[in-house]
């Protein structure tokens, strides 16, 4: 009886309320609610998806990670690699009608660097001063050469906001952001929606085919997919790997995917406080044995339906900076046992801290089972994320199964994690030779030259294993079959350019 009433009611309502969807609106289902929409203060990955429609950057990347101009036209390094001159695109307007020029660019750099609470300060730490050369040229002056800088300018550090709006709103700029991107801010209801509408004076407006973009955070991936299936969304980001067969079988939908820039790995506490005094923290041979006991392909096959990729370095195997001479190791339990015998600890015990996500717990259980064959005894400690982060930083952990979302430049995936003073080096790993090579890699621009330095780093860390890299996730999107022009980028941002509904 309850059900029939319900059905009748639902039927009546569905007739009364015609579908509100319009072909001119691009509706994107996000996996989380973004944080503050200020490029200077923003800190979440999901916020960057919104910025891709809202705020243009000086440079962008191509799907194969080449740098291409966006609000800039070109760049040139000086002889000594300490000065970067950037030519800016002319005739670009911010969404409040203000002109984008060299003075505005200088304002933005200084805001990123000087604003209290800026999350861009670290990315631009090499920049000492900014000069306005002429109305459409700026020069960044560096204390020492820093080749990852251009890659930083392809993301939030390269986003330009309207100086007038930024001055008016101060640290609340993110509540009504004004940038130079294809869509301007209309409204935001936290945890419900972010609405943007087409900016008529966008410099590249010929490539924009929607009047509105609406971002809706829908945390549950099943529900995100259901919204797409019922026509409530055009794109759902980060769908579950286990839902891919269903998406591929559904004629109304299509899927897109690309391997991520980041990695999933295990960080070991090698020197951060008393808890580093465990068999794995104390002896690199025990960590080697641990790594050899793990079958990485089995993890990606069992937990992620074979959609993710095994890995052993801080960049995925298809990355230009992957060190090919050190391939993903095969599982070798016999060798692992030998190493443990050499180290004199045939049955080492370790506590593996993990975030409480169901898929990660499954990964941890597989690791527990696989390493048991070599003699390890792994205790899994699932910990709420904020608490886990604090334990990690304080050194209150032995091993931590954690993901890094990845950066365009390889420096962003390694420097902070294993250089002696790196802010993310929670295990306190320190090797002067590694530090030297990482620093040198920052000073050269030429990719093959940089790769040589990273190869030297890999030669050392693949033996000392402060971090065991396990696999690289794949970014997965599901979208309406009618949507055309979607290009998957390894940074997983959804660029609205050229997207259209047929």
């Amino acid at each position, binding site marked *: 009886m309850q059900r029939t009433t319900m059905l009748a009611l639902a039927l009546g309502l569905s007739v*009364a309320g015609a579908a509100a969807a319009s072909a001119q609106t691009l509706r994107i289902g996000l996996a989380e609610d973004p944080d503050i929409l200020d490029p200077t203060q923003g800190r979440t990955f999901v916020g960057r998806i919104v910025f891709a429609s809202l705020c243009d950057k000086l440079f962008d990347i191509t799907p194969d990670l080449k740098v291409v101009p966006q609000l800039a036209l070109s760049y040139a390094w000086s002889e000594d690699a300490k000065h970067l001159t950037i030519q800016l695109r002319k005739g670009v307007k911010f969404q409040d009608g203000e002109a984008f020029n060299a003075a505005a660019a200088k304002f933005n750099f200084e805001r990123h660097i000087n604003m209290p609470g800026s999350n861009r300060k*670290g990315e631009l730490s090499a920049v000492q001063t900014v000069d306005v050369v002429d109305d459409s040229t700026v020069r960044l002056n560096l204390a020492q050469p820093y080749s990852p800088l251009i890659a930083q300018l392809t993301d939030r550090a390269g986003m330009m906001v309207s100086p007038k709006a930024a001055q008016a709103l101060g640290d609340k700029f993110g509540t009504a952001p004004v940038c130079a991107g294809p869509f301007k801010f209309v409204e935001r209801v936290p945890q419900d929606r972010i609405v943007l509408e087409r900016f008529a004076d966008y410099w590249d407006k010929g490539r924009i085919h929607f009047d509105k973009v609406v971002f809706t955070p829908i945390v549950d991936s099943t529900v995100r997919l*259901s919204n797409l299936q*019922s026509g409530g969304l055009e794109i759902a980001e980060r769908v579950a790997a286990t839902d891919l067969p269903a998406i591929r079988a559904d004629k109304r939908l299509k899927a897109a995917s690309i391997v991520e820039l980041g990695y999933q790995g295990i960080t070991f506490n090698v020197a951060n406080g008393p808890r580093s005094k465990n068999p794995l923290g104390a002896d690199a041979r025990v960590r080697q044995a641990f790594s050899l006991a793990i079958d990485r392909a089995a993890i990606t096959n069992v937990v992620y339906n074979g959609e993710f990729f095994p890995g052993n370095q801080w960049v995925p195997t298809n990355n230009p900076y992957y060190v090919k001479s050190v391939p993903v190791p095969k599982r070798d339990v016999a060798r692992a046992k030998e190493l443990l015998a050499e180290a004199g600890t045939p049955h080492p015990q370790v506590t593996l801290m993990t975030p409480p996500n169901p898929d990660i717990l499954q990964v941890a259980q597989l690791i527990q089972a696989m390493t048991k064959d070599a003699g390890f005894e792994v205790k899994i400690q699932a910990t709420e994320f904020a*608490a886990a982060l*604090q334990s990690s930083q304080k050194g209150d952990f032995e091993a931590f199964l954690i993901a890094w979302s990845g950066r365009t430049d390889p420096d962003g995936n390694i420097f902070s994690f294993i250089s002696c003073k790196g802010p993310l080096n929670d295990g306190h790993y320190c090797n002067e030779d590694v530090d030297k090579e990482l620093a040198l890699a920052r000073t050269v621009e030429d990719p093959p030259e940089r790769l040589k330095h990273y190869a030297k780093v890999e030669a050392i860390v693949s033996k000392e294993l402060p971090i065991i890299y396990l696999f690289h996730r794949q970014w997965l999107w599901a979208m309406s079959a009618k949507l055309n022009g979607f290009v998957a980028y390894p940074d997983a941002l959804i660029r609205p350019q050229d997207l259209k509904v047929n």
Partner: protein
Amino acid sequence: MLAFLVRRLAIVGPTLVFVSMLIFGLQQLLPGDPALALAGEDRDPNVIAFIHQRYHLDEPIPVRYLLWVEGVLHGDFGDSIRDKLPVGGLIAQKLPVTIELAALAMLIALAIGIPAGIVSAVRKDSLADYAANMLGLAGLSIPNFWLGIMLILLFSVELGWLPASGFVTLKEDPVQNIRTLIMPAFVLGAAVAAVMMRHTRSAMLSVLEADYVRTARAKGLTERVVLLRHSLRNALIPVITLGALELGQLLSGAVLTEQVFSIPGFGRLIVEAAFTRDYAVVQGVVMVTAAAYLLLNLLADIAYVLVDPRLRS
């Protein structure tokens, strides 16, 4: 009656102060530095230091509590660290959503639970009684997120009658508003209806055996009058208490249901705030919820008096 009201109102203030201290203290017990949770993946030390200073995180707890009290007395609940919005505004935005959802769910619960409870008590051991008990058991044991996802799959994906999730306010579009709320309200209402039904049934059963019901029947009153005026009225007192508690719970936010249906209510607000250690938001939401509970209890007390005149003395 007036003295009773004054007495009850007088304890609301101290209770709220006590709750505010308790929740402030409890939050400090949470492991996890808010600055670390808010600084983002890069954990820039400058940013962490800035957050500590800006939000007084290094001050002793009593000092921070007094700073918060000072703000509240000036009508300022503070700003969300996460998105810089004033907590008062966030609450004002979410509260109507949660109230509407709770009211709708309660309506559904009452409409199903009380009639079903009466019928199964009056027709004890009949087919209707068994059916009502079965449904009640199901309503209690089916997890609401599962029921929610099943409803979405049926009504949104398969039949395409209702939007799968999201929320539209009553002001924007009343029809769309009901369309977005009907499934989550049903999910929440079904669970409450089951509890209501069980309690109405057992209260009715004990009342139906009371002497005054036999007297009423002996006087030759119609069964309708016996049931509704003599039995139900007496049976309702425990049900009212229960209803007030259940409504309070609905108002404190239905985390899982809101999550499944992407309803921007209290539940999601407080959960996201707790995960990012956004203390000001957690504190604000808990205070409003506590106030709602106190108010509902007060209303329940008033309702007892209205239903049962003996309590007036």
